[in-house]
């Protein structure tokens, strides 16, 4: 249980770090404005005339593409820039505890941002009679999606002390994870490649796996996919940090 105590301590500090600076508030406001904009304007929430949050969740992979790396880019690059990594990693904790603690803190922060969109769910319940199971499933999927992007940002932020580079690399990787299964792209790909190959590539895409959650179809494989992305990215973060320390 000692491990969990250490993880909690790291989480607390990291979360505190978001809220003692204006970053957290700016982030939350931008997040809510953008979700609102995409849902109601671009997503034609009202014109659709259906009681669901499809127009809300559809945009999340794109919205997170920029917002999640923005929230995650400082995780490790800041530690390296300030030199506090040397303090943190000479404390009686393991590198894993530090990685997991930092990741969970940011994830919790993103979860908070997501939770603050609850008025959308209230609105749709007020206007119609939606399937709230589908809505919950959408939220779970969205949270897993955010966690996957975040773990990738965590990994890229361990690579460099420069937050801008960390942000850009992370956006590129996340973009790839979207495009690999984005219908316009896969439609294009099947013209040249064997459909089986295209399917395999698409299996690595967050789009493919986020889809089910939006429709309320819970497939264990989708959950496993997101969990593996997170696990893999955090593991790689550990490897990167270890190699850097070795010099």
């Amino acid at each position, binding site marked *: 249980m*000692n491990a969990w*105590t*250490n993880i909690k*301590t*790291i989480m607390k*500090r990291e979360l*505190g*770090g978001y809220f*003692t*600076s204006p970053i957290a508030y700016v982030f939350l406001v931008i997040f809510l404005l953008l979700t609102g904009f995409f849902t109601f304007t671009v997503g034609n929430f009202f014109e659709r005339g259906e009681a669901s949050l499809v127009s809300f969740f559809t945009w999340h992979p794109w919205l997170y593409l920029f917002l999640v790396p923005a929230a995650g880019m400082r995780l490790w690059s800041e530690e390296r820039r*300030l*030199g*506090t990594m*040397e*303090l943190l*990693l*000479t*404390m*009686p*904790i*393991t590198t894993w505890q530090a990685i997991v603690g930092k990741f969970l803190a940011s994830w919790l922060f993103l979860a908070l941002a997501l939770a603050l969109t609850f008025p959308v769910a209230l609105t749709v319940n007020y206007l119609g009679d939606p399937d709230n199971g589908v809505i919950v499933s959408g939220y779970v999927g969205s949270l897993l999606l955010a966690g996957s992007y975040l773990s990738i940002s965590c990994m890229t932020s361990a690579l460099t002390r420069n937050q801008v580079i960390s942000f850009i690399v992370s956006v590129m990787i996340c973009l790839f994870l979207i495009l690999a299964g984005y219908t316009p792209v896969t439609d294009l790909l099947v013209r040249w490649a064997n459909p089986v190959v295209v399917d395999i590539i698409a299996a690595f895409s967050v789009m493919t796996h986020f889809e089910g959650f939006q429709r309320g179809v819970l497939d264990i494989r989708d959950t496993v996919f997101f969990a593996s992305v997170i696990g893999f990215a955090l593991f790689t973060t550990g490897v990167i940090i270890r190699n850097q*320390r*070795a*010099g």
Partner: protein
Amino acid sequence: MIKVENLSKAFGSKLAVNDLSFAVERGEVLGFLGPNGAGKSTTMRMVTGFIPPTAGKISVGGFDMLENPIPGKRLIGYLPENAPGYADMTVHGFLNFSAELRGIQGGARKQAVNRAVELCFLENVLYQTIETLSKGYKHRTCLAQSLIHDPDVLILDEPTDGLDPNQKHEVRNLIKRMGENKAIVFSTHILEEVEAVCSRVIIIDRGRIVANGTPQELKARSEMAGAVLVRASGVAAAALKAQIGAMSGVKTVEILKDGEGGIEVRAFPDKSKINGSLTRNIAELAVQQKWQLDEIHTEEGRLDEVFRAITLPDTVKGH
């Protein structure tokens, strides 16, 4: 408490630390000296478990730092070079966080933080964020962090860097006092600091230990050690030089000053032929010759001279 055997660290093809061995027991204060880039910080980073060595063994309090570092890390308080700290945290928040990571809970934590704040004189900046602190206060905050759990082993990389003279004095006293029942390693570029607080000194140059001993032993290696300084008036400098130079047991005499304010010469003993105290012999000669002696004393030898003699050739040659 600290035991380092055949420690080496290579960065690429460059050997930053080359086959270093030393041990520090409880009650000892070990000073690390060495030119810039000698490998002091790298050695400390390996002992504290921040970077893995290329070869060698490290144990702290009997725990292997490579196989199972956590129990060893618990015993260590570490002040890294440049005293890092979380920019957006307050001093109080930062110390609390360190105490928490050290597993200090509840009331004990409050006490630990208060104690560290007192030791490092941080009362005035307790609720200021670290980014707004002056360099010296930032340094003291990080030092406080290293003391928070009253560790058995302290590794301090340039602990007095950036402190004002009063604070330097306080920190030296603190190190000296704590050294009575802890094992302390600290690095510095201030040689008088070494004389003031160290029980032992290691001089590192290009990753190797080039000298190891008490400050007194090292000072005795100085050419200056045992030389006699004479300040007198009522006699010509040349005559003084000639007469002292003719004494048995004197190797050379150099004139330091020859003018209005009197003359000053320094006599170097011939260590193989000396009989009795050279200082006393010269004083007797002065009485005989009726020189007016203003000052006479035996030089102890100077650490900076020893340091230069040992490390200068390398620095000049470059790396």
